[in-house]
């Protein structure tokens, strides 16, 4: 469909000239797919403006032309043309074009083509909201997130990473700031520890509700470096309006430096916790053995009783 493509490009070029979004103060876009969203939104805005100006002028003309002092005798029939029907059909067609041509493919790309296997080389991050901030769990080079469970949660291991899981050995948990790599596809899996938060990266044209108990993936590709804010978009309690976090898009080498630092920090407390868990397990085992020895006879009689039933 080269024609359609041409038409789309012309439309895109045109809308760059007449960027209503910018006029309305829209934040600049820094992601690959964001352009398409902006074009579509701009198209919508032009469409709305055209309709509003059309309606508005009709309204104003009617109001002035047919006010009582100028037009004392009303016409029983009023409008006799069927122009409005054609207009209606036109509106439907334009809306259908926006829907089928832009909206559906765009959303399909966002949810169907998530680069989730390792060969895509995507940066995989879990973004977990809490009252009132964000934790970011990086899957690391192996592309696998380490196992995670509530019972491992401590003051430092905030996400409850299982220290014994080898998949977690290259994982990083960062708080408050999310680092991203320029031009690298990024998958954020958004969830929450407590209540519903909203994960909005406006410059990336990405947003997702963080709903506890579910994990929602979304992907995007940053196209310029910079530092922006992550906005919590759902009311999450008294500290909602202060729940700002940062995200930084940087080049790969800067990211690597940061990642190495974070990896050390994360693995330090994971190793420490692992040691504690192993120690505890040994102690438990010893105690169990001791108990078994002590209550051996009692236990036996219990079984005997059971058999009687």
């Amino acid at each position, binding site marked *: 469909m080269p024609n359609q493509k041409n038409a789309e490009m012309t439309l895109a070029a045109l809308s760059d000239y007449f960027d209503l979004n910018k006029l309305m103060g829209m934040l600049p876009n820094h992601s690959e797919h964001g352009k398409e969203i902006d074009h579509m939104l701009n198209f919508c805005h032009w469409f709305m403006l055209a309709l509003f100006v059309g309606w508005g002028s009709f*309204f104003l003309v009617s109001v002035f032309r047919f006010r009582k002092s100028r037009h004392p005798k*009303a016409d029983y029939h009023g409008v006799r043309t069927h122009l409005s029907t054609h207009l209606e059909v036109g509106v439907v067609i334009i809306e*259908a074009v926006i829907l089928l041509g832009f909206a559906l493919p765009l*959303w399909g790309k966002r949810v169907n083509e998530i680069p989730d296997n390792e060969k895509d080389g995507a940066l995989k991050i879990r973004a977990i909201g809490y009252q009132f901030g964000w934790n970011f769990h990086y899957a690391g080079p192996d592309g696998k997130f380490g196992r995670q469970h509530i019972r491992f949660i401590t003051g430092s291991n905030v996400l409850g990473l299982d220290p014994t899981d080898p998949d977690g050995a290259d994982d990083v948990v960062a708080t408050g700031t999310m680092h991203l790599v320029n031009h690298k596809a990024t998958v954020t899996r958004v969830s929450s520890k407590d209540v519903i938060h909203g994960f*909005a990266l406006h410059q990336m044209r*990405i947003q997702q509700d963080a709903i506890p108990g579910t994990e929602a993936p979304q992907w995007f590709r940053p196209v310029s470096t910079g530092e922006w804010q992550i906005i919590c978009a759902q009311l999450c309690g008294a500290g909602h309006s202060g729940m700002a976090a940062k995200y930084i898009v940087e080049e790969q080498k800067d990211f690597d430096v940061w990642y190495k630092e974070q990896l050390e920090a994360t693995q330090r407390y994971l190793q420490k916790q692992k040691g504690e868990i192993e120690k505890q397990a040994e102690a438990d085992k010893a105690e169990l053995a001791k108990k078994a020895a002590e209550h051996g006879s009692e236990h036996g009689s219990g079984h005997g009783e059971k058999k009687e039933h």
Partner: protein
Amino acid sequence: MAHAAAAHTEHGHDDHAHDHHEPGFWRKWVFSTDHKMIGIQYIVTGLAFLFFGFGLMMVMRWSIAHGSDVLPGFWGNLLHGIFGDAVFDKAVDPSTKAMVGYSLSTQGYNVFGAMHGTIMVFFGIVPIAFAGFGNFVMPLQIGAVDMAFPRLNMASFWSFFISCVIMVWSFFVEGSAAKSGWTNYPPLAGIADQSHHAVLNGGTLWLLGMVFNITSSLLGAVNFITTFVQLRAPGMTWGRLPFFCWAQFITAYLLLLAFPPLESAAIMNLFDRVFGSSFFMPTGLVVNGAVGPDGQPLLFSGGGSPVLWQHLFWFLAHPEVYVLILPGIGMVTEIIACNSRKPIWGYKAMVGGLFTLAFLSFIVWAHHMYMTDMGPKVAAFFQTTTILISVPSVILLTALLLSLWGGSLRFNTPMLFAAAFLPMFGIGGLTGIPLAFNAVDLYMHDTYYIIAHFHYVVAPGTIFAIFAGVYHWYPKACGRMMNETLGKLHFWGSLVAINCLFMPMFMQGMAGVHRRWWDGGKSAYEATVGPWLDWNLKISYAAWALGAVQLIFVFNFCWSMIRGKKVTSDNPWQATTLEWDTPTPPPHGNFIKPITVYRGPYEYSVPGEDKDYTPQSEPPRDSKPLEAKAHA
């Protein structure tokens, strides 16, 4: 009434019975079964709540503009005196330790925000536009003596009243009222207030209040539909019904079928809150390190789904949007027809549009949930239905606009409000178009763009329609006109202020300002929305100005009751519909003599007639001799 009914079975219909049975004070003014009195009760209660809800917003606008700055002394003391420490923080000068004043706390902002939404929607607009005007006007317009079930009607008002009492009361319990948004999303709504009294806390009282409110709406809806279908006067065929009645009928049907799922959700949420069940509590919730927000362990076993609430809530709350707007469109239609002195353009298309709208409104709810991890198929379905629903909306608006063409427009106060409704509702509707798309929602979701969008629909939309309705039907209810000069002042002031209030919000939203920020983004989000922070104060001034303008209305409303110009005719607007055939104010039982309908609702400026309106009850000219014979 039972006594009266029994007496009447003996000697058939006696239409002057009401003259002999003047009810006592309580039966007449308080526990009335008369649909007009109940309508007025709804309207007055609703207006009170409308202004209360607006007042909450004016306080919120202070904190959005000024953050933690203390409120002006008088207002700070007054508000703290009413709402107490749970909502207002005491500010102390750090050096002198002297009390400086009170400011709205962050939690207090959430309380006001949640209650502003709840009150405006469920206690302001629906009671006025649907229950109030529906009760007062609809039976009159179809030529009925009363509602089909008068005692049920009273029960529905008192159920509503109980819900009002519970909602107001909830401000004064420990921890103040509900604070999780008017959408009350769990788990936040489930864990809020857990350290307070087990039942008498904001969150639980909110749910209890909603259960009573919903019950009231359900009873009302049953009554409205039955009345509409059964009690139409002879000759009032489906095609002759005023559009307002159709709008009320469709609204009642929406309430009847959409509200029960929210009631079931509210019951589930009550179970979660009171009995500790886990309908909306997923497994593995960790609040402040496995400990509840107030230092208590979470007692939920888990296994629930927070999204279930959202489905059930929006299954109501999207039809609810049409519950808010349809009665408004209905009122505007009546007023435009009357004041343009010509028939409504495309009556049949409008009624058809209503039915389509009603049907579609049940299958668009998930467009409020685009950000909850929606698959492409589901997303495609809901985007398509959402786009489809814009078609009947456009039909309604276009028909009303075209109705102006060729009229002889009489710009009295009701007409001003009704005419302004059209472009305002247009803005609200149009800005819904981008929001219908999932991809655009990636940027727009929960920004001020949304706020501006739906406020344009309900504030200069429905609330303007409500004002139009009050000015229009006031003479029928009170026998006096409201003052025109004050009315016009009220209109122009409101129009300017409300646009200054909501128009900049579109820009703010585009610039990334999100809703429910206690300080408007000053403390945390300056890096993102910095250039638009100044606008917070400007918008707040517009809000306060809008509040001030409403005082004119309140004054006009009360003053005109005693001093307003007395109406000289039962039909001061020279309208065609049946409500103007009754005495002013209409007595219990409404019509003096049995009424018959001969023609459509909007026979204005009929060619060949001697006056520019032909009431529905006026017999056709050629049958006049016959009528005269019957009378003789």
